């Protein structure tokens, strides 16, 4: 297994996984509906802000500055957290981070922990690791809870259960929640109420909570979580011990910087002017809230990503999910085809970098899972040039491949042909001769790999007279 197990074991490469998803018409209609609704709302919310482009540039600049001096800012953060009574732990990879959380949970005498949605803990498979160690993790974000109870995998950054519709959620609750009423309806209100009852008991009894972080402020040591339901706030305030697992890229230098991101994030993610709950805490406060606070700073492939001058921009990501919602590939295939907690365009560039293992076939297929249409870059609030990173990672993947692979040989043969205008003209003439075999001007069946094209599309044949031949015959005097 790769050192950083960001991808799920056993998921096939993207084209295969996508093929399965494409066959699921319920999934496609759930997704189309959900992504189109949020896409339109986002456009409207962003349209209200006159200086959106400047905000994006500011977000980009703050994140770049942070990443350029990450070591300094992380040390500042550590010092600030420590001085306010928190404890900072450094984890190189998933195994180290999981071991720290398990040890802390056991020390607190907890066999159950409540969790507020966190991508970092999903990335490292914390729930499974805790389970193995005899500690049950309970997701408190509604969508996360649906995924957890359904024994499912997340398919979206913000709405992990986006692939489920209401009646599917109702079925999951009825089967998995002992206290769910027998006549539970699929109305959102009824579903939310059932979840609320289920979770309330957990909030009141849990000794330990585990959270992620949207932002951490280096100079004050404050951690921030933004959410919509308020369940997160319960986790952050009620238990005695609070453990935050955070990717090392999530910090900003000063609290002033939050002003930029608190505008960029809600509009980009939920299309709201302001998210309903913003919680912020700094170390511990005697007699108020958790009395123990642990911050786990997770690397898990981030330092390696940072060392790549083109790829590192992926670390600017604030996990708003706007790129997923506009992506035409995500819209058709859903998030699970990407085989990791980071789906969609950002997943296609972040996952392979975090995994950092050319032998992980799923991860290696991801940079190719894009038509390079550029819609993701257009919406990204921190201006991550996702298409640029995609082609960069494709080049990396090609460099790993044998120069003798059929594709590499074909590409090199074509380049050689294109590098010589005479060879190119010869190839055109050969094509035109072959075209005579298809009097209709197109073919509907090509041998492999062309068959991948002609499965659904006719292929035009070369014209009997190429443009250059026409030019030579009719205009050559004006050239050369």
């Amino acid at each position, binding site marked *: 297994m790769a050192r950083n197990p960001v991808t799920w074991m056993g998921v096939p490469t993207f084209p295969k996984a996508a093929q399965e998803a*494409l066959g699921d018409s319920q999934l496609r209609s759930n997704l189309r509906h959900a992504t189109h609704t949020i896409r339109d709302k986002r456009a409207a919310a962003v349209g209200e802000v006159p200086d959106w482009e400047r905000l994006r540039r500011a977000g980009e600049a703050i994140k770049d500055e942070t990443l350029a001096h990450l070591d300094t800012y992380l040390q500042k953060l550590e010092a600030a957290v420590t001085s306010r009574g928190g404890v900072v732990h450094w984890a190189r990879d998933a195994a180290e981070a999981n071991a720290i959380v398990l040890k802390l949970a056991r020390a607190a005498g907890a066999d159950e922990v409540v969790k507020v949605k966190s991508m970092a803990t999903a990335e490292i498979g914390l729930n499974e690791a805790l389970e193995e160690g005899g500690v049950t993790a309970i997701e408190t974000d509604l969508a996360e809870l649906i995924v957890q109870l359904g024994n499912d995998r997340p398919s979206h950054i913000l709405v992990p259960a986006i692939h489920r519709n209401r009646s599917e959620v109702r079925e999951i609750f009825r089967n998995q929640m002992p206290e769910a009423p027998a006549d539970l309806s699929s109305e959102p209100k009824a579903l939310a109420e059932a979840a609320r009852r289920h979770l309330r008991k957990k909030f009141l009894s849990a000794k330990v909570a585990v959270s992620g972080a949207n932002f951490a402020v280096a100079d004050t040591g404050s951690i921030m979580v933004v959410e919509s339901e308020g369940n997160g706030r319960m986790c952050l305030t009620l238990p005695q011990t609070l453990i935050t697992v955070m990717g090392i890229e999530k910090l900003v230098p000063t609290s002033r910087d939050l002003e930029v991101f608190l505008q960029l994030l809600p509009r980009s993610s939920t299309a709201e002017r302001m998210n309903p709950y913003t919680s912020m805490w700094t170390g511990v406060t005697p007699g108020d809230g958790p009395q123990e606070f642990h911050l786990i700073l997770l690397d898990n492939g981030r330092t390696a990503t940072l060392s790549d001058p083109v790829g590192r921009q992926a670390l600017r990501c604030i996990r708003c999910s706007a790129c997923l919602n506009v992506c035409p*590939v995500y819209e058709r295939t859903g998030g699970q085809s990407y085989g990791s907690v980071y789906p969609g365009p950002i997943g296609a560039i972040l996952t392979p970098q975090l995994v950092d293992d050319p032998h992980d076939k799923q991860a290696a297929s991801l940079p190719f899972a894009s038509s390079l249409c550029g819609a993701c*870059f257009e919406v990204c609030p921190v201006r991550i040039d996702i298409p640029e990173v995609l082609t960069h990672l494709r080049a990396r993947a*090609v460099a790993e491949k044998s120069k003798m692979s059929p594709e*590499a040989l074909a590409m090199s043969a074509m380049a050689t042909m*294109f*590098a010589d205008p005479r060879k190119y003209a010869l190839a055109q003439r050969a094509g035109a001769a072959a075209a005579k075999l298809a009097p209709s001007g197109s073919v509907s069946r090509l041998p492999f790999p062309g068959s991948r094209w002609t*499965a659904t*599309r006719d292929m035009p044949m070369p014209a009997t007279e190429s443009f250059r031949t026409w030019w030579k015959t009719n205009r050559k005097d004006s*050239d050369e």
Partner: protein
Amino acid sequence: MTTAQHESPTSRPAAGMRVALMATCLTDTLYPHTARAVVTLLERLGCTVEFPLSQTCCGQMHFNTGYRDDATRLASRMNEVFDGYTAVVAPSGSCAAMVRDIYPKLPGVGEDLAHRMYELSEFLVDVLGVTDVGAYFPHRVTYHPTCHSLRMLGVGERPLQLLRAVRGIDLIELPAAESCCGFGGTFAVKNAETSSAMLSDKMRCVLNTGAEVLTAGDNSCLMHIGGGLSRLRTGVHTLHLADILASTEEDPWHVTQ
């Protein structure tokens, strides 16, 4: 060959401007009529068109598939081929974007050609300053703004301004126009099923318009959508913007040809 005059993309040339046509390998080989249409059109507007015969392919497919060395080799060639021309015009948003956005990032290629590269509609509107090119095309037409024209080049309304000025045209708005058609070069083969799913949604939108002709500024996307429309025997034709703009009352394009 006269000496090179490097101008910024917004400056206006004198009449009789000398223009180099970058036909693109796809149009040269599969759609030569489009390249001829560009010549007809530009000459009608008073330009002198040249076609350096040593041009081949811009290297976009190699670049996008991850074969950087091959792409760089082809880019350097094109750089030399078009050395000395004030303006280079291509009937392709994606090839123009390759030259403009990617060439400067390739080792040893530089920005020189990027500054002189125009996609056709940009050249007509920004450089020649025309939107009415005297075209006549009495058909129901819908326009697909290809992704690279739209997002990498930002051609915006230009193609539509040109189309609106065409006499006889019945221009119908394409629903979900900005959605990708699913071509994406080798993506269409590597992720064929996903590409086809995107294509079928695009085709449904095209069919909903009731248009006879789908046009765009890029023959590659048109090859993809046209290949699907032809497979389904929809009877909808795909035709490059240049072919429509070159069509006149004296010399009209026949949609059935």
